[in-house]
């Protein structure tokens, strides 16, 4: 053929190599932390400040991405925040497949990291193994409950059921059709189940007549948090059968649900993990609030502990709460707010059954 087509062949070959390099998960991304970003979404964390400090922070994501606009992103922001406060650098590795958990953690071990954050329930076993093998390195496991305390491993856990319960309580008061829905990541991850149980019990707590319809993504850990098309289609199904307030909890899958609900007039949606008003602006037409886990301050606090040397192993209970109502401030009446305050007090006192843990 012609010279042109030969050249094209070369271009394709280069493209393929380039692409393979982009998707490879094995290099710590050379991203230096500088921006104290709690609102995220907008700016790239890219300022370079070559600091000679020896303290190194490494973060390994779950199979979601570090810019998933919810779970992994909030942990990464916590790492960046702590790094900025300490004047050091933080790096991350995105896990592409569950089998790489161990390798990715070990990359940071070999790189000489002082503290390694692993984000997600799925990395629990790999994190415990690494913490046992490397007693000099501090490990922070987000969403990883520690059954046995180790001095160099802290599990950052949250009462997701309480967060979901508060959001559900609000939903029970807001719904007019008496049907509330939830589109969720996967029941393979206990925190997601805790969110769901809390949400449903909360809705029934304020509204005994309510019908709750909830769906988990049927796929495995590798796809359940990255399938916005499924989330959107399922949210539409829930809307079609009368749900008028829906909880979208599951990374990009949940975000797909939120955006779908935004196109339905009169329907409300509830985000998860962070204040998704900022992270998913497309959902603003319906986003009443978000059931937040304050991951960012939890991670930042634990890193600060590790840096100062008074790191306590075991479980670290992070805080939860509802995000501001933003544009929907006016529809949440004083009466509803009073009820929410009562619910919060009851939850804190342990008087309310959130349905989680089961039994």
């Amino acid at each position, binding site marked *: 053929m012609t010279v042109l087509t030969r050249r094209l062949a070369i271009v394709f070959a280069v493209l393929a190599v380039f692409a393979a390099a*982009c998707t490879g998960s094995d290099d710590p991304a050379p991203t230096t932390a500088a921006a104290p970003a709690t609102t995220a979404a907008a700016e790239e964390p890219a300022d370079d400040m070559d600091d000679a400090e020896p303290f190194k922070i490494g973060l390994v994501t779950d199979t979601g991405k570090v810019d998933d606009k919810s779970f992994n992103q909030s942990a990464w922001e916590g790492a960046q925040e702590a790094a900025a406060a300490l004047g050091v650098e933080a790096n991350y590795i995105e896990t592409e497949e569950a089998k790489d958990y161990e390798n990715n953690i070990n990359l940071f071990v070999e790189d000489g990291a002082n503290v390694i954050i692993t984000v997600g329930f799925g990395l629990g076993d790999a994190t415990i193994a690494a913490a046992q093998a490397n007693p000099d390195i501090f490990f922070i496991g987000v969403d990883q409950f520690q059954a046995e305390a180790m001095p160099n491993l802290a599990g950052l856990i949250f009462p997701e059921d309480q967060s979901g319960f508060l959001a559900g309580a609000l939903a029970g008061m807001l719904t007019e059709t008496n049907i509330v829905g939830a589109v969720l990541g996967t029941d393979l991850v206990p925190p997601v189940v805790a969110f769901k149980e809390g949400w449903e019990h909360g809705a029934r707590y304020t509204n005994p007549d309510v019908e709750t319809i909830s769906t988990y993504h049927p796929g495995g850990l590798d796809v359940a948090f990255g399938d916005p098309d499924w989330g959107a289609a399922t949210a539409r199904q829930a809307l079609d059968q009368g749900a008028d307030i829906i909880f979208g909890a599951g990374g990009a899958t949940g975000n797909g649900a939120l955006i779908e609900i935004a196109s339905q007039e009169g329907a409300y949606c509830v985000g998860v993990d962070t204040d998704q008003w900022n992270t998913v602006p497309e959902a603003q037409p319906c986003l009443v609030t978000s059931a937040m886990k304050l991951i960012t301050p939890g991670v930042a606090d634990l890193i600060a502990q590790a840096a100062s040397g008074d790191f306590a192993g075991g479980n670290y209970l992070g805080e939860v709460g509802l995000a501001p109502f933003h544009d929907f401030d006016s529809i949440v009446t004083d009466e509803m707010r009073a009820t929410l305050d009562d619910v919060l007090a009851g939850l804190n006192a342990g008087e309310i059954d959130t349905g989680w843990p089961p039994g």
Partner: protein
Amino acid sequence: MTAGAGPDLAAASGDAGMRGWSPQRVWSVAGAVVLVALVWGFYAWDGAQTTAVLGGTVRAATLLVLGAMCGMIGERSGIVNIGIEGQFLMSAFTAFTVASMSGSLFLGVVAGVSTGLAMGWMLAAMSVGLRTDQIIAGTVLNIAALGLTSFFYDRGRSLGQPKYQSIELGPLADLPVVGTALFNRPPLTYLALVLVVVLHVLLLRSVWGMRTTAIGEHPGAAATVGIDVIRLRYWNVTLAGGLAGLGGAYLALESVGTFTRAMSGGRGFLALAVMIFGRRTPLGAYAAALFFGFTTALQGQFQLNDTFDIPAQFVGMLPFVVTIIVVAAAGLFGRMRDPAALGQPYEVR
């Protein structure tokens, strides 16, 4: 070769043949009647849930049938396209980016279709022009799309406007059962439906369709009657890419309303199964896509209403099991076969 003699006719129940009622046709009509009766029964039992499931079915089927049509034009011309996944993803990315920057969904769709055409042309250049192994050529598209879109993805970007909204087609939208599912849809779904019918007629009835079948079955013979095999394969694979491009635009601008990395989630590969199940005819593929879409919607529904205690994963598995059975059974009875020259590069002698 005429349309009636092709292996495709028997499968397409909506296709008015000239040979009267073959046993297959009796079976497909009987099946359709049973299906309609079942759906009607469920509708009478619970209208809202039936509407929800049917809506979800059409919605999931749209992307699949667009991908399947892209694949079938290629395969009928003798070119295997396993790069549909990459074409979806890349087009979704450009459609989203252009729509976001320009503020116009329409420009986004144009960008998505153009990207699909460009990707189709690349596939043609590799597999027709350079006679590369077609599987490798498709794989290159998939890897390149995943890498490029991940690299250029700007996480702060949002669409900045609502995605495509449903348009009610007057009184048709008030019909029972199918009103919402078929006649209260966003624009790209309507476009896809029209394309299914148009392409079905073109592939099975037009001169272009006959020639396409000829270059996929016996390119040497086609060349002897004056068909420029290389040129037609180039055109077909490129234009087919436009259909996958429309699929990508549908995914980003109508179904989801944003872009996330790897958002096509394997649906481009699923489209190949749909194409085979549908026997490489657009109407057949649409029926297959509806079936796949139906099980997707049903999966969610089983969980939503808690009435059946069937694991969602089991329902999700059904289309694949059925595809394997159909392909195996059809293979055993010799009623389904690939185009004879599929996967073979053609060299002008």
